[in-house]
């Protein structure tokens, strides 16, 4: 089971500043999108909680559907990020 032998660190990774900058900017854009959604959710719960009582579809109220939406939305953005991110030439996992 050579795969379990973790005694030594791997060689230093290949760096590419252009790729790193692109990935960082992409990350910040996606972060801003999610922050806006999360911020809106928290603000509505805190200051207008009655809105969360409404039942917009499928018999599930907005509190549950928006909460589920935030969890699923995080996964969708994460997958999008993984797909769009660039890899340095000659490196990457």
């Amino acid at each position: 089971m050579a795969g379990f032998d973790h005694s030594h660190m791997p060689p230093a990774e290949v760096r590419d500043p252009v790729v790193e900058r692109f990935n960082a900017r992409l990350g910040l854009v996606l972060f801003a999108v999610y922050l806006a959604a999360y911020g809106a959710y928290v603000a509505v719960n805190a200051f207008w909680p009655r809105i969360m009582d409404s039942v917009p579809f499928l018999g599930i109220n907005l509190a549950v559907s928006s909460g589920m939406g935030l969890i699923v939305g995080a996964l969708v953005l994460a997958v999008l990020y993984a797909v769009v991110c660039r890899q340095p030439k000659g490196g990457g996992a």
Partner: protein
Amino acid sequence: MIYEPSATAVVVFALFVAITLGLSFYLGRRARTASGYYAAGGGVPWFVNGVAFAGDYLSAASFLGICGMIAFFGYDGFLYSIGYLAGWVVALFVIAEPLKRLGRYTFADALDNKFGSRGIKLVAAVSTLAVSVFYLIPQMVGAGVLIKPLLGIPHWAGVVTVGVVVILIVATAGMTSTTYVQFLKGSLLLLFTGGLTILILQRGLKADPSPEAAAPQTVTVTADGQKLVNGKPHGKGEGQADLRPVGRVSKLPGGASETGPLGPVEFLATIQESEVVLWQEKTVTDKAGNTTTTYSPKPTTGADVLRPGESTLFQGLQGDQLAPKLNFLSLMLALFCGTASLPHILIRYYTVKDAAAARKSTVVGIAAIGCFYVLTLYMGLGAMTGGAIDPSNRNNAAPLLARSFGELPFALISAVAFTTVLGTVSGLIVAASGAVVHDVMTGYLKLDMNDTAKVRIGRLAAVAVGLVAIGLGIIFERMNVNYLVGWAFSIAASANLPALVMLLFWKRTTKQGIIASVFAGMVTSLGWILLSGDTFKDVYGLKPELSPVPFSQPGLVTIPLSFAVLVVVSLLTRPKT
């Protein structure tokens, strides 16, 4: 009777512990270098690391605390699920890749990468220890909670059992064994909670309008120490009484008596239209010194159960006062910012080979953790309506829910919950051990140690931290584990995140700014918690009105404060050019 020792549960539990320890001893022979002990040699595959993220992160608070909170209060517990998951967005989009490039073994490595400052090493190590200890408390409390119904032994014995097993895991192979224990645990947790959710949906909902099921219950501890349940001596024999399990639906839509199997959407929609019996707790002490706790039923509409504000923690959300709303905002901010600043999570980025692997493993982690948090709502509501929970303990709803399906589900869920505690506590102890040896002893004190000495002292530090954790787990027995984790998130978010973010994105950040920011965030958040109304009530036994701070959660004040301190100190100490 709620608690009955189960032979099946004991066998499954022993099997899980044996597998976990066997894996640790096997890996222990292969991790003799410092990089192997503290960072698994950077050689963990990204998928394994991603599932191990889930194993590391989904702690007793998530599994026991959130399920318990949803079972007793409904939607308010799910708010924690959302906040805990949202924090991973910060980790993925902002922190993961640069952190992997900056660090080697510990969180302090990343903060100190640009400066080579002993002060940063010290303050980051102290912060790591503070956060780890606060995070350890609920894990150990959760361990005692699990062992009690599983083996029928007292809380303290459960805490000691977990402590000993974890110390063995960490002391044998450090991060390598911790990673594979967490991978195993993350996989099993998802598998079994998914299975439990299927059982809940298959069972559907059943109305029980009988008056006996809704009768109040009392527990009295007399001045001479005798425990009475419903007026009779506590016990399971003739003339004795034990608490009756609770949790049921009192009315189903259309007056139906049961629904039969339900789909995931249908299950939630049916609860929305039903009436559920929640349970309230009130404790009074009479002049003779007898303390009586009364558990009273509270019929509640499903619509109220599935909206924020049912629990004492968040009930102010439905009112007009500002302080409870600020308290809620503060908690949700801490959960959002806290994940990406928990030292035991951050060090997992050093176990993969490069930044791309760090990114991919975080995506896998978000998928696994997100799935689990969706399931918490079903498990919590399943416990609320399944007739199996203990009204006197909000932390053990999930195992007792599993017991309502039979001994084997109970044994499997209890065993996986136990590995949940093991996985998280192992990660915390590795982080704390790394802070002591790598940051304080070699980084700050500049002690010259070879690899063998670093590993040996790391093992000793792991034993010491494990013993502290055992002591704290016994002392804080009755605190809700989820609430305690909220404290750890607040301290981590206030002390660590501002320094890390500014180091990555603001070129004028100085070492003095980082030191001041970590110190200010740690001291103010800790101080705020110790002075909060919740601590006054639950820890000191004082009136919460005496608290000098306007709300209990510190993040809304202390996170911006930590950012501000970093900016001001960095500007005051910028190098002359």
